[in-house]
């Protein structure tokens, strides 16, 4: 039985997507539990690679666990990059893999600097770059799929392409606002006089209206992905409202309850899923323009393409 090298690269990318999604959940939990600075040094933790008893203390377990998952994802990203370099000859896949390898390094440095410089601004950038890294891996999984080039062409009008692109940009803006709200805590609450919450809710409405518009125009082939997108948005709105309710009742000098920690974390995870789904839809809409292969080179291992 001869293994298909493209399929194996695609599977490696899919595992990276799952790993980075878990990493986003772990990072979200760090913010929910306000545990980002509970390990004050970096890259070591309390002067050691693995401080004894780290698993027993909740905040250290949360932060150090996040670092361990991040390390595993970075290693997997390096492996994925190497496999793409060896087995893929499609321009887009190679560029995305190179970008993924660069972003994972930048993301690790951002996380470290956030700890060492006690910077809330860097924490917010770290949160957003994490989402973008996840989106990048989703894109890599989409374009390394063997059926990427052969799948039935969707009826992509210019309007649809613009809508999907707008949806991705709006979701990223929405995520940036959400990340700011979570990190600023009490200072970002509606009664604190900031516009963040209102902008977050406003862009949520925009995301919903674009998704509804896409859903209305979708044919039978595109309908399932359009419905998935709508379902993700509906789940995200419910999680957002629930998160708002539980965090509003939270005193910021106490440990978060299970609900206070996990509901906003799931909201963050659902946001990532929404970004991934939007980007997938966008990539399919722009597929014809994106298929620009490098001059075909001989695949060095695993058989010819």
């Amino acid at each position, binding site marked *: 039985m001869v293994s298909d090298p493209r399929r194996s690269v695609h599977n490696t990318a899919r595992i990276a997507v799952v790993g980075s999604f878990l990493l986003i959940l772990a990072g979200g939990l760090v913010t929910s539990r306000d545990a*980002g600075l*509970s390990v*004050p040094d970096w890259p070591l933790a309390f002067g050691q690679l693995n401080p004894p008893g780290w698993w027993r203390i909740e905040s250290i377990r949360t932060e150090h666990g996040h670092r361990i998952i991040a390390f595993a994802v970075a290693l997997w990203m390096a492996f994925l990059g190497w496999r793409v370099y060896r087995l893929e000859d499609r321009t887009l896949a190679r560029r995305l893999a190179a970008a993924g390898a660069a972003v994972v390094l930048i993301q690790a440095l951002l996380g470290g600097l956030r700890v060492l410089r006690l910077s809330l601004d860097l924490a917010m950038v770290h949160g957003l770059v994490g989402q973008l890294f996840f989106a990048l891996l989703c894109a890599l999984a989409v374009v390394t799929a063997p059926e990427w080039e052969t799948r039935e062409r969707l009826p992509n009008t210019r309007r649809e392409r613009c809508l999907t692109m707008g949806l991705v940009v709006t979701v990223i803006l929405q995520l940036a606002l959400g990340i700011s709200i979570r990190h600023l805590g009490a200072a970002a609450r509606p009664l604190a006089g900031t516009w963040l919450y209102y902008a977050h809710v406003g862009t949520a409405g925009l995301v919903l209206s674009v998704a509804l518009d896409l859903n209305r125009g979708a044919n039978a082939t595109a309908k399932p992905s359009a419905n998935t997108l709508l379902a993700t948005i509906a789940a995200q709105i419910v999680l957002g409202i629930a998160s708002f309710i539980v965090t509003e009742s939270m005193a910021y000098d106490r440990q978060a309850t299970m609900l206070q920690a996990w509901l906003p974390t799931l909201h963050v995870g659902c946001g990532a899923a929404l970004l991934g789904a939007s980007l997938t839809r966008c990539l399919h809409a722009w597929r014809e323009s994106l298929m620009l292969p490098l001059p075909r080179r001989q695949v060095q291992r695993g058989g010819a393409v």
Partner: protein
Amino acid sequence: MRWSVTRATSAALFAILTMVPAAEAGTIVGRATYRGTPPQPRRIHMTADPECDRLNPDGVSGQTVVVAPDGSLAGVVLSIKEGLDADLKYLVPATAAVLDQHRCMFSPHVLGIRVGQVLEIKNSDATMHSVHAAPASGNAFNVAMPMLDQVIKKKFDSREVAVRVKCDVHPWMSAYVAVVEHPFFAVSGSDGSYAIENVPPGTYTLEAWHEALGVQTSTSVKVGGDQPTELDFSFGGK
């Protein structure tokens, strides 16, 4: 030997520069109280760290607003705000102020120190702590304190009432360090009382600060003579 001579000289200079002749020096005394029904103190349970939970199996009361049954309010920082001779300089105490991480709480919860005075922060628990402070003047720090009896030393270089100090390992742990540029300050005790002693005769305005109840400024009061000057502050409810 040389060190002890220097210390003795410093102590003598401190005494000379900060002491006012007893016949002239005044004292400001008073009490901080809470009006109305105080908020119920929150119960803090420490299940997030088994060692802290073992030390406090029933949890502890929150220390944000500590009011005695008679309305006495603890943890108010009282300091002279206006009226001191700006040209006078006061020697910084050679002894360090101590902030202890004990039984997974900061002790004391509110502490007054001088600008430039050494603050010793100690870990008296057999668990990992950290110390994180972000003074408005800059020089924020976040230091790991994983070892029992570990001590670190810090100084603050400008007035700030008050700098919040946190342990990021244990989200319920916080303390406030009031950094004052002169020696005329006090923190109200559990009976709400305070005393600022050895105050040069004059007319002063006092500031009373509480971490949750805000800041109050007194009207001008005269200090000097045989009798202490009495000044009470009342915070809070309706």
